[in-house]
Structure formats: C-alpha cells, structure tokens
C-alpha cells in the first residue's frame, strides 16, 4: 500500500488508535501529502456546511422523529448534522415540513381508517360477512338512487358554474403548515385552532398576534395564514355543488395576502411570497377579477414556487 492509500485509509476512520496517529503524523511530514490533507479538510467543511439533505435522510429522520424505526440506523449518528442543517437551510426545512405533514396524515389515516375512508373504497372491519350479505341489496339500491340524484345535480352545477369559479376553490387544499411559522403563543394557538377546524378562533389569535407584534420581521406569516383562512371560509356550496364565495370574506383574504407579500421583503423567505401569489390569484377568481388572477398565477409560474403545477393547470383552464 503506497503512502497516498495509507492516508486515505486513515482519513476515512472515525477514531484513530495511537499507532495510527503516529503513522498519520509521519505521513504528513511529506509536503505533498500535507497539502492534500489540508485541502481534504477544507473541502469536507465546505461540503458539510453547503449540502442539502437528501430524500433518504429526510425519510429516515422523519421516521425517527415520529417514533418509527428508521430503515437506515446510521441516521442516529447524523442527527446533530441534520438538525443543525435544518436550522440553517430554509429549503430543507420546508421540504421536511411538507414530508412530515405527509407522515402525520398517514399516521392519522391509519389510526382511524374508517373515518378516513374514501368513498368507493371499502375499508376493513366495516361490516361482518353476514351483515354484508343482508344489507347489500338495500344499500346498493339506496346508493344507486342517491348517486343518480347527485349526478343530475352535478351536471346542472357544472353547466351553471363558470370555470373561473370552480378554479377559485381552495377548500381543503390550503397547506397551513408549509411555512416555518412564528414561535409566538398566538400564532401557535392559531395553528391548533386550524387543526380543529375552528377558524373563528384562529382568526382571533392571528389578529391578536398582528396587533401585538406588528413590527416583527416574520409577522407576514400571520397575514399569510390569515389570508388562507379567509379564502378557505369564503366558499359556500351545497354538497360540493353550486360553489359561491362571500365577497367580503374573500376580500379580507386578498388584503392579508397582499400585506404578507408586502411585508415579506427581507428576501429570506421567497417561497412564502411565491405561494402567496398563487392564493392571491385564487382570491381574485373568487371576486370575479379573472385578469388580475391570471397575472398572479403567472407570477407563481414564473417564480417556480411549490404551486407551479396548479398555477399552470388553472391558467390552461382559464384560456
């Protein structure tokens, strides 16, 4: 084994024995190897401070954080690096939050599969074999009748609802947790309230947060979430059909989203602004301002935010 190989072998070890330390010192007496060693360490520092987390790391880290056994146990050794990185990298933090929310949704789905069952897919343990047999004919008939009535109403709704109105809906789509958020009590309580679908309380908490901390650098988050809540609650429909929007509530949503964009001027959180563009587009659709809506969907598209695909799809449908 030549000297270069010996050095590489030593450099990949986590701990050196005393004889290996002596060998390393001896190798570094060679100028060429010493320069290699110094460059090696500089690159290592730069790579560690400048790399993003990959999906395997995020996957295993999220499993571990949620009390599930990670597939790759070496993630435990990497924990300090990963957590340090998440504190410093907004891109990875957002990715972590998105995927962690996904894990939570799987968690709640599996915890109560019956509640979360999607219509048309039968979940386990809903009915015993005998019950199934007895009730099958009646339920099939009832389902058919209800389905037929709904189908007729659906076609009527489709024919009387303009495309712009359909595309304005954010019902259940708004991701309230994509952002880092704020550590204040009021902000955190608002998230809890949103989780419980208690939007009135969430609005009160956020308005309190805004009035008490209006000069905080991150107050734009509160305006952003408040804007989303207003848009979420602006929608009125009947069984998912004939959508309409409360004008005042949609206008409140638009106002808060515009404020969020205006206040998010530090350049540190561009993704919030790009997502806000998308929802400003939706708010304008709710208010019937299709041209303004297109302008904002185009901004979301040009800036390649997380709503890029949805913005592209809506623009296509509005053409």
């Amino acid at each position: 084994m030549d000297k270069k190989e010996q050095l590489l072998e030593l450099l990949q070890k986590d701990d050196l024995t005393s004889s290996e330390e002596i060998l390393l010192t001896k190798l570094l007496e060679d100028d060429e190897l010493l320069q290699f060693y110094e460059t090696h360490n500089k690159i290592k520092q730069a790579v560690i401070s400048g790399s993003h987390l990959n999906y395997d790391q995020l996957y295993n880290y999220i499993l571990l954080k949620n009390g599930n056994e990670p597939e790759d146990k070496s993630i435990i050794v990497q924990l300090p690096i990963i957590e340090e990185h998440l504190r410093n990298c907004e891109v990875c933090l957002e990715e972590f939050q998105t995927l962690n929310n996904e894990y939570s949704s799987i968690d709640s789905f599996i915890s109560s599969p019956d509640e979360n069952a999607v219509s048309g897919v039968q979940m386990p343990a809903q009915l015993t074999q005998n019950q199934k047999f007895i009730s099958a004919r009646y339920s099939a008939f009832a389902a058919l009748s209800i389905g037929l009535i709904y189908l007729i109403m659906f076609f009527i709704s489709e024919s009387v609802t303009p495309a712009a109105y359909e595309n304005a809906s954010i019902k259940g789509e708004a991701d309230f947790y994509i952002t880092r958020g704020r550590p204040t009590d009021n902000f955190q309580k608002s998230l809890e309230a949103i989780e419980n679908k208690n939007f009135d309380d969430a609005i009160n908490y956020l308005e309190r947060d805004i009035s008490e901390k209006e000069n905080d650098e991150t107050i734009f988050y509160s305006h952003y979430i408040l804007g989303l809540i207003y848009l979420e609650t602006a929608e009125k429909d009947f069984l998912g059909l004939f959508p309409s929007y409360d004008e005042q509530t949609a206008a409140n949503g638009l106002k808060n989203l515009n404020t969020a964009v205006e206040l998010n001027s530090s350049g540190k959180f561009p993704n919030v602004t790009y997502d806000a563009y998308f929802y400003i587009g939706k708010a304008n659709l709710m208010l019937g301002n299709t041209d303004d809506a297109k302008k904002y969907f185009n901004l979301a598209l040009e800036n390649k935010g997380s709503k890029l695909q949805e913005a592209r799809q809506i623009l296509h449908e509005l053409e």
Partner: protein
Amino acid sequence: MFEASRNGDSNAFQTLSGYIHNISYSYFLSKHRNGKIKNKDDVEDLANNVYLAFAEQYHKVENLEFWLRRVLFLNFINWYKKNNTQRTLELEESFYIPAKEVNPEHKVDADKILDILSTLSKDKQQILKMRFWEDLKFAEIAERLNKTEDAVKKMFYRTVEELKKRI
C-alpha cells in the same frame, strides 16, 4: 388474522392483504382527490407497490401498523421524488451557501470551494458528497455507484488534487 397469516393460513393472508390494498388505495386516492397526486394511474400503482411489499415481507413484519405507516410513507416519498424533479435536483445535486453566521474568512473559502465543486462532473460531486456529507466509507460508495473500491479511491484522490490546484 395477522398472526394466522404469519403462521401460513392462506385465507387469512388473502383477506389481510386485501385490507392492506384497500387502505393503501384509499389513502393514495385521497391524495389524488385533494390534488397532490395528479395522475389517477399512480394511485393504483402505489397501492400495488404496498400490496407487493406486504406479500414479500409479511412473515418478517412485527408491528403491522408501524410497517404500514413506513411503507406508505416510503412509497409516497419515492413518488414525490420522481414527480418533483426540480426540487429533487435542488436537494440532491446542488450545493447551497449556508446562511449561518461564520468567520468571514472561512466563509469566503467555503463559498469559493462550493462554486468550484458545482463545476465538477456529477460522479466527482457524488463521491465527495457521499464521503463527506453522508459519511460513507469508500467500499460503501463503490457499492452504491457500482464501481470498484480502488476506482472510487483514485477518483476521490484525483478530485481533491484537482481542487487543491483550483482553490
């Protein structure tokens, strides 16, 4: 039923694997309906992947709920990775300049090194990232890249030498 499946009861296995498929399908369908999964064909593919994983692994599974959470999540991440190519590229192939406050002199060095790293070939960047960021040994890198350990060591050595001249 789970115990019966593990003990070789084929009826129990069939019923249970049917349930696993239904839960998976229902979950991915909900993602399709809320717009996260655009293509409905993906829903069926993803549910089938979970079903196949169960068929392969059921005899080793200890806690079915934990297993199902992990496999649903793994399949979702794999799908997400494949369908968010721009973000995947950003996360897995690029270097970024950390926002953390560091000694300005070191920061200039690190910025310069990261700039140069981004001009290296994909293979060289991968080797450096695997070695330094993922802390893999040369043998593990070789296995992942389907190369010999010797080839990886040589490429690593040459890359560091190349950077030494350019820094």
